């Protein structure tokens, strides 16, 4: 699949950490339930460190891979570290993105930042939210 990096292919065919934690410490949701890509993260955070994280996702293959790759990278990190992630970092986690796929880096960065914010502010995403 010349269209995707080997990492993207690996993650959308063998997603890691798929699912939803029963009783998460924090949850973040980004997406548009009508037409676009969606990612929901649930995580347990112990002493500021992400100990468990799961994703649910709906969207194109690259966005599924993004969700999967995010969880792998976030696992075991201090949650505030995720605030440093920018589009370029998410892209590098994915082994690169084609010109048509750039939007998933934004999606990934946004959901990661939201996870940090929701944790810090103790809020939850219970309703659909349109990503920018």
């Amino acid at each position, binding site marked *: *699949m010349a*269209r*995707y990096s080997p990492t993207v*292919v*690996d993650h*959308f*065919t*063998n*997603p*890691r*950490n*798929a*699912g939803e934690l029963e009783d998460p410490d924090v*949850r973040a*949701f980004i*997406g548009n*339930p*009508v*037409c676009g890509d*969606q*990612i*929901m993260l649930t995580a347990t955070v112990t002493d500021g460190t992400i100990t*468990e994280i*799961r*994703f*649910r*996702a*709906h*969207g*194109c*293959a690259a966005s*599924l891979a993004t*969700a999967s790759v995010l*969880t*792998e990278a976030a*696992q075991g990190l201090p949650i505030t570290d995720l605030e440093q992630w920018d589009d370029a970092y998410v892209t590098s986690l994915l082994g690169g993105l084609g010109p*048509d796929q750039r939007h998933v880096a934004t999606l990934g960065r946004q959901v990661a930042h939201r996870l940090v914010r929701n944790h810090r502010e103790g809020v*939850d*995403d*219970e*309703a*659909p939210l349109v990503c920018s």
Partner: protein
Amino acid sequence: MKPPSSAPDRPEPPGGARGIYLDHAATSPVCPEAVEAVLRGMEITGNPSSRHGAGDEAHEALRSSREQLARLFGCTADEVVFTGGGSEADALAICGTVLAARDRTPHVITTAIEHSAVLESCGLARELGAQVTLVEPDGRGWVDPEAVRRALRPGTVLVSVMHANNETGVVQPVAEIAELAHQAGALMHTDAVQAAGKIPLAESGADLISVSAHKFYGPKGVGALKVAAGVRLAPLIRGGGQERGLRAGTENVAGVLGMAAAASAAVRRLADPGFQDHRHALRASLLKGLEQAGDLEVNGDTASCLPEILNVSFAGLRGDTLVDVLAVRGVCVSAGSACHAGSDAPSHVLTAMGLPAERAKAAVRFSAGRTTTVDAVTEAAATTVDAVTRLRSLGPAVPPATRAKK
């Protein structure tokens, strides 16, 4: 606890290194007869227009190829015009008719489910001064002749309705529509790019019929337009006067020979009851296998369609995502139409049929071919069911509160 980040086992692609190809509606492999003919064509040096032995050889190759295409169309050899593909045949039929009728304000009728080559040729026709009416299909992707009849006007010069739809496989009542068009004094064009080699074209009653070699096991980049005797077209590609002045340019001798060989093979297949049984058996096995995934809908009229094309929507998925996953697992299929790959917009065909956006975006097209086996479709179906199940397990992504509200 086993770290959740360990990757699950990756299933091996089925069907060998090349996988299972179920995307024949996008393009078909070149059959051995056509490969051989193309090779033979490349040995012919001459230009068909030249006054010497080398030219005569090329000329003769075109002559015999034209007869083979005539048998596919069910027309005379004189009525066959070679083009650079199906899109060009569509452009010539539509814009050629409009340009030839330029003194009036020509009116063209087509449908909302046509291939983009027809729809955008109608766009160019509009720029050339034509008025265009789009007839909508019903919910099963079928064009009612009655709807075409209502769209006819005194100034209608052309009705263009495809023979079989490339996304749903739905076969249109072309002969009936041709009769209406003729009664109203209009020409009938049918884009038979998907139908050629699968349905006899002679009965279509159309004055203009487009075909494209690579959809019936010929090479890419060559097609033909039947232009019935007496039909006046203005050419788009002008110059050397080749193809009765309707398509200039040194003829694609090797490609035309390849297309002709493929056409002959297709005509033989059409008459073969074994082939007919096989295509229906493939569809039945494929559908039976896919149904194991549950929660799927077939798009398009299953009563009147090419058995080769099966368009299904698996609830809760995105078609392009499923196509990508299947591609990695060695099953080649397409999301709606290959021409729209990379674009997120739902198929204009499924949208015109009134399908909800979610269902249209979930659509995946399986298209079998002459060398496809029942085993292969069964295996492809099993792989698909597994992929669908895995993908469904990843979503929905909406938060619990929203889910509960549904």
